[in-house]
């Protein structure tokens, strides 16, 4: 379906839906990318050369023209391949505010050389969200229990060691429960996972940690119900947790988040150093350590938007993230992802104000 006459027939989101519900994904894989953006991503993506935005009712059609040669400034800036493949991307709003769906039938070449690099470089416009291992497990459990198929098989899983570095590992043909036992045992991050649902009906897809999905076969309605919806609702939960927390004035303080890790990694001083190294390695911000041991207080400047963030280790398994001036959802998602992807999986919560203590409490009658 690349740049075919079908694109020109799309006059509304309903037309696109019509095409998708009859599409044969076996012939042409559909690729879905959830995007967080305060503004319509079509307007941001359309600013690049060789992209034509065709606004339609409830959907924007982005036509990426093929580009030959490296003479364009755009090419140089984006570090793209000499030959830039063509492709069409559909940008749709979702039922969640500030969350958008990007859909395309374009091939790997277009995705990895043209669309994905632009999305990942526009970090300021598109705060990046990631699924945790638990999120992925939950999505798979939903598929296993609710779908019209007999069994779920993990055909290919790519595991990345936590903390970056190290080689990724491939695991083939496993029951998904077994796979998650392995992921837990290795304390690894599930980078991507190809799952085939076999039964009277089939659904074959690859789920990526950033919430993207490649549909290899199956029905549009099943994708909507078992993948798109659970992914978007998780993105929306995460977004509402981190939104509107920045500091506004001297009195109007940032609202802190608490990360409760699954392991008491800060029981030893090495845990604090590991967290500092993780924040530095992530490259998301400049890090200053005000106090390292035995408790950690670091201050960060987010190099994407200039925000100020304070990080405290408040107990052997708790990190407190205090948003300062300019800290928005993008900055917080970056910091939280660094902590949970590098150190240990954990639950992110609104930091409850501590109960009012008395002098006797402070005296250590605990």
């Amino acid at each position, binding site marked *: 379906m690349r740049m075919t006459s079908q694109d020109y027939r799309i006059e509304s989101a309903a037309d696109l839906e019509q095409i998708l519900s009859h599409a044969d994904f076996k012939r042409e894989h559909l690729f879905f990318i959830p995007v967080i953006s305060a503004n319509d991503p079509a307007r941001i993506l359309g600013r690049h050369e060789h992209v034509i935005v065709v606004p339609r009712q409830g959907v924007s059609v982005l036509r990426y023209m093929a580009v030959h040669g490296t003479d364009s400034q755009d090419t140089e800036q984006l570090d793209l391949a000499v030959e830039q493949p063509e492709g069409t991307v559909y940008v749709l709003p979702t039922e969640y505010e500030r969350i958008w769906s990007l859909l395309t039938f374009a091939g790997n070449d277009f995705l990895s050389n043209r669309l994905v690099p632009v999305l990942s470089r526009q970090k300021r416009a598109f705060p990046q969200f990631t699924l945790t291992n638990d999120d992925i497990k939950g999505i798979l459990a939903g598929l296993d229990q609710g779908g019209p198929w007999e069994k779920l098989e993990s055909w290919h899983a790519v595991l990345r060691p936590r903390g970056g570095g190290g080689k990724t590992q491939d695991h083939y043909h496993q029951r998904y429960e077994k796979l998650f036992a392995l992921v837990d045992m290795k304390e690894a991050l599930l980078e991507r996972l190809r799952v085939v649902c076999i039964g009277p009906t089939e659904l074959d897809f690859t789920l990526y940690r950033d919430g993207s999905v490649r549909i290899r076969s199956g029905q549009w309605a099943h994708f909507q119900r078992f993948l798109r919806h659970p992914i978007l609702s998780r993105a929306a939960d995460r977004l509402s947790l981190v939104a509107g927390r920045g500091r506004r004035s001297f009195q109007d303080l940032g609202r802190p988040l608490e990360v409760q890790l699954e392991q008491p990694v800060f029981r030893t001083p090495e845990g604090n150093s590991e967290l500092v190294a993780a924040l530095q390695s992530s490259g998301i911000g400049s890090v200053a350590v005000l106090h390292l041991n035995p*408790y950690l207080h670091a201050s960060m400047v*987010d190099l994407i938007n200039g925000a100020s963030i304070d990080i405290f280790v408040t*107990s052997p398994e708790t990190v407190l993230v205090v948003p300062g001036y300019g800290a928005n959802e993008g900055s917080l998602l970056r910091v939280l992802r660094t902590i949970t992807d590098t150190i240990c999986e954990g639950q992110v919560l609104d930091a409850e104000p501590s109960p009012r203590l008395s002098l006797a409490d402070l005296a250590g009658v605990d």
Partner: protein
Amino acid sequence: MSLGRDNIPSRQDIKTELLNEFHDYDDAVTCVACWYYLLTQTSDYSQVTRHFEWFPSIDVGDRRKTPDFTALLQSGGIVAEIKAGIPQDESALTEKLEQLASYDRLGHLPRNAKGTLEQVSYIDLVVLLHRRNAHDARRVLSALSEPGREFRLSKPPIFMTYAFETDRGQTKMAIDRLDIPGNGSFTPIRHESCAQDLYRHFCEEGRRLAWAPKQFYQAKTQFMRVMNDPPKRLYSAYVLWEELLGEAVAKGVWEAVSPRQKVIELVVHPHEISQRLTDKILANHIFTIDCVRDALEFLRKAELASRLPEPQGAYRVRLQSLLPRKSARITPSETKDVAEQLAERYATHVFRPTSPTADASVSDTAQLPLRLVDS
């Protein structure tokens, strides 16, 4: 400062001293944050304390007094001074005694953030020393009671110590009243909400207090990680560095530079930065132009800034992330944060092994090649 051979501080000595000073300042900020929590958030004191002033600045005649914090209680108040330690020499000791005597005589304490003063019936003068320098307290107390000294305090200051402690993985800042002869006492509080006051707790029962990070983090971040002493050298350089970097990124100056060129040059006017930082803390005697200029001088000596010709008094700062190269995977033992990197650069450039007599200003002549200038 510990000295190396030939009494010349080594590069490592300079770096260590800078970092110690940096962390001492941070501990002092934490100490103020603990008192802030104690006097404004606890069930015993939240109704007793009428105003806690984080940045007190009290004019007495033509002199300005800036104790480290003050608290206006029901009729009296607390005035506190935090010192990592008290210098050994006689003139420094005399200066300290004069300072304490002047705090004892204040008579008025701020009752709001605007600095409006209110008369108080007594002042409990608290001197907080880092626990490693607890022994300094005896020296001050005995000097205060020496015959012939003209410092007559209305009552002895209360010497206390602060230090971090870890128990079963939980770290807390602990504050104790020193149990030494002649040490001062808190004035008892009579208020229905105050079940336990500082007098009973510290002076009668000889107990201590300890704050977990959950209790002090909020004040520390609210007051922008600074206390009522203008930060010195490395700490002021760090504050300035983060401010400049944040501003450059927020305004898009940073992003405008191609991703590989990780250095941008900014022209910085001390009075502008001083104003910006002052606006953030709502107190004008911390980030003075002198404090900002000192920070810029520190960066200049670390070869991260150069001075532009007068009359503007501006500096050109070479801003960079100070992060390791992207390809490098950092192991925890190699972690060098902004403070350590600034200290290291300063120590490296100030240290001149070939000319031990040379002043740090030798680096004045080192002009940096200019690449991208945003003026």
